[in-house]
């Protein structure tokens, strides 16, 4: 394994009641206290309660972009149904599986690459401590193995168990220390160094929380919500948070209602948003077209999951690109942006609010389960200047009837907000003339189509359309073009190329629609080879790039359906095979 980042990756797995999700969170919090950076994803069985679960964590002394190609450690509190996760837990001969002998042998499905194995009698050790739990024993062992200072865990356990009283804290810490002691007999895995106390400010945040915060930062104050995995946490975070800043979240009866409620609220002048996943987006599509035609700004977040249909609700895929870009009937110019990391959910959502409000258009934000439900310890995101700012009409002009859809150079017409005297009008999803009056005339249709399209083509998107990064010694002639969650492993691949003195450029497209051919052409100057990376079985992104951009003849596509994420090594391997 080519290591360019000082990191350690581990999985805690176990069946219902084993407390692996809690253990993962405690470990993440403790790592935060230790000054580390981290990324934590979860995977679970289909049960609401008691199902098998796994927490996948990667710790580093610098920001974590992606999961690694494999895990150094699998700490299995038991083996129940663990093979369901085996594809999500790549192990190598250097990996270490630690299991509890009370639960028998590790299943063969985990042993393909001959990982090292060791035993830790978690349940026996826990049984000797009053109210001791095996998961805390496991955490002690993990802390010892990866070099996590015990004091960090002490502080976290105190925070978390405050309400349960000192006895509970003592029991947990006793089990934790017993785990540390027992780890003395375990084989070694890489350790992370302790970090000096004075690190840069860091946040602990999930992608879904970052999305919610981005919306509020951008000015969203009305959210309509219909629960759907894996978007629900966006809405759950927003409900109390909106209330704190003078906003409101309303639970709707279905997604058709959510999208139309936010249309109503935004028409009323309050920046509005909803969050959903593929099935919900499918239901909202007709009304997104309404928002395009009636020119009502709004933001819809799609936390993508595996489709089609109900698909795999709890797992990730980048396969809603087509519906987001092409799903609307008619010619319906709208914005599609995609976040490319946990913390970028904040930037991209905030930017989306800004774009939607500025252009009076619906903006779709694509995130996915992998980044939405992942928690990361990240550098504190920068303050952003983007605030939704709508061009409004505030006063009637003497002797002139207000034109809601007036022809303007930018295509953006001043919008009268209900309550404004003298500017009453009807916003309409029927094709209309400048006043908003329904019209079936070709000239009105074409003029309004031009106007709606002009809003998007004449807008200055700046550098945010894509994140472009080169290896240390320059771009060379090779580019990886990717988007969304695939950006993480691609970034790390670039990092590894850099480490060996190689050259490549990473282009992670944030502004999916409208397309930016000139900017892409500039970004591809001197590039002769392109590798497209995406998590879609049919290669939706690749097809879109082919349709709208001039790509070099030597363009390859690495695309696979979800839910397995690319590892950085998989991307590197593709580049190497190709060079050879």
């Amino acid at each position, binding site marked *: 394994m080519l290591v360019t980042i000082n990191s350690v990756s581990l999985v805690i797995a176990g069946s219902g009641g084993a407390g692996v999700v809690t253990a993962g969170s405690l470990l993440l919090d403790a790592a*935060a206290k230790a000054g580390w950076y981290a990324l934590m994803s979860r995977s679970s069985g289909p049960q609401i309660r008691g199902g098998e679960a796994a927490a996948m964590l990667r710790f580093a002394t610098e920001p974590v972009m992606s999961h690694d190609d494999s895990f150094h450690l699998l700490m299995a509190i038991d083996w129940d149904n663990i093979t369901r996760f085996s594809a999500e837990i790549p192990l190598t001969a250097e990996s270490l599986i630690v299991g509890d002998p009370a639960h028998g042998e590790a299943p063969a499905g985990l042993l393909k690459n001959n990982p090292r194995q060791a035993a830790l009698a978690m349940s026996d050790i826990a049984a000797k401590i009053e109210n001791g739990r095996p998961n805390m024993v496991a955490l002690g062992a993990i802390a010892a193995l990866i070099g996590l200072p015990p004091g960090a865990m002490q502080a976290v356990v105190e925070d978390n168990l405050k309400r349960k009283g000192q006895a509970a804290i003592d029991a947990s810490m006793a089990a934790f220390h017993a785990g540390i002691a027992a780890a003395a007999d375990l084989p070694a895995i890489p350790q992370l160094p302790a970090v000096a106390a004075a690190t840069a400010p860091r946040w602990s945040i999930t992608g879904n929380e970052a999305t919610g915060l981005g919306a509020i930062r951008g000015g969203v104050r*009305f959210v309509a919500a219909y629960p759907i995995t894996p978007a629900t946490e966006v809405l759950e975070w927003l409900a109390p948070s909106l209330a*704190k800043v003078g906003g409101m979240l309303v639970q709707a009866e279905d997604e*058709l209602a959510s999208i139309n*409620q936010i249309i109503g609220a935004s028409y*009323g002048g309050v920046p509005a948003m909803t969050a959903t996943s593929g099935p919900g987006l499918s239901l909202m599509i007709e009304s997104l077209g309404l928002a395009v035609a009636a020119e009502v700004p709004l933001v819809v977040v799609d936390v993508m999951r595996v489709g089609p249909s109900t698909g795999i609700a709890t797992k990730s895929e980048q396969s809603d690109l087509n519906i987001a870009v092409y799903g609307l009937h008619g010619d319906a110019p709208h914005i599609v942006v995609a976040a490319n990391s946990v913390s970028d959910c904040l930037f991209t959502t905030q930017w989306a609010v800004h774009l939607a409000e500025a252009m009076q258009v619906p903006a779709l934000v694509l995130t996915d389960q992998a980044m939405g439900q992942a928690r990361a310890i990240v550098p504190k995101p920068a303050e952003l200047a983007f605030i939704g700012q709508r061009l409004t009409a505030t006063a009637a002009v003497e002797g002139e009837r207000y034109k809601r859809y007036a022809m303007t150079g930018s295509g953006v017409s001043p919008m009268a907000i209900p*309550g404004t005297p003298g500017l009453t009008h009807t916003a309409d999803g029927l094709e209309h003339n400048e006043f908003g009056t329904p019209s079936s005339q070709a000239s009105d249709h074409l003029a309004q189509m031009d106007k709606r399209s002009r809003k998007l083509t004449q807008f200055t998107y700046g550098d945010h359309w894509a994140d472009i990064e080169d290896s240390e010694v320059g771009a060379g002639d090779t580019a990886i073009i990717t988007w969304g969650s695939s950006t993480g492993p691609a970034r790390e691949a670039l990092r590894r190329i850099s480490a060996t003195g190689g050259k490549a450029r990473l282009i992670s497209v944030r502004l999916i629609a409208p397309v930016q051919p000139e900017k892409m052409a500039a970004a591809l100057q001197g590039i002769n080879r392109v590798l497209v990376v995406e998590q879609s079985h049919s290669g939706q992104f690749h097809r879109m790039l082919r349709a709208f951009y001039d790509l070099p003849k030597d363009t390859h596509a690495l695309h696979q359906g979800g839910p397995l994420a690319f590892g950085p090594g998989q991307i590197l391997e593709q580049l190497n095979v190709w060079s050879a």
Partner: protein
Amino acid sequence: METTAQKKKYAAKDYKSDLKPIWCPGCGDYTVLNSITRALAELALPPEQVAVVSGIGCSSRIPAYTSVYGFHGVHGRALPVATGLKLARPDLTVLVTGGDGDGFSIGGNHFLHACRRNVDLTYIVMDNQVYGMTKGQASPTTAPDWEGSKLTPEGTGINPFQPLVVGLASGANFIARVSSSDPINMARIIVEAIQHPGFSLVQVLSPCVTFRPEQAEWRDIVRTAVVDYTDDAARAARRLMTDDGFNVGKVLFKGSRPPFRPEFEHSHGSVAELEARFML
């Protein structure tokens, strides 16, 4: 008595736009438009403080024919648009207009939940038991044996939807039925519906002169309801369950459920405080 100068800042005409309706001559919807504008004038609401929201259908064309703020959305979704608007802008008076197909078929789920949620809206449904815009198909309120549509040449064979019974069961806070042949009474009831807090449902028997010409008889069939409104939902239910659909001109039920009105908090919180919770 108040004088016109004191009270009457607005005339009905002030609430009409210059746009000429495309409804067939004789259509009940003309009368509904007039009753709405009369009601708004009587309430002396400044036009900019009123919004009319609709979906798709003949009657959903109403917003553009008014001089208030209007929103003409997609088929069946008028109620959620109005819900979002009213919750975001509680200062506005929000009316919803539409037909039986828009409200009870494609928009049926929203109807149930709008009644349940009880946001302070006035929902005026022009019920003509037919889809007029698409040339006369059976709607949810059409009688099962109506054979006038090529889609259902043998009739639908299914029971008509009972909007007022369903509205009552779902929690509508004000229920009335009126006839388009009695525009003044309609105006009076719309005034009451607007004034009553919560979700007000006004069913208007509004004949389709083109696809249901036999509905011209409605004006002779309807009768003014004998009993005044009740605030007892159980009594109202019995009454509505046994009613033949032609008792009009009176409010049938007035509830006292408080409207759903989450206030935008005048909060002292700031975005910085939200961000602080992520800080390590």
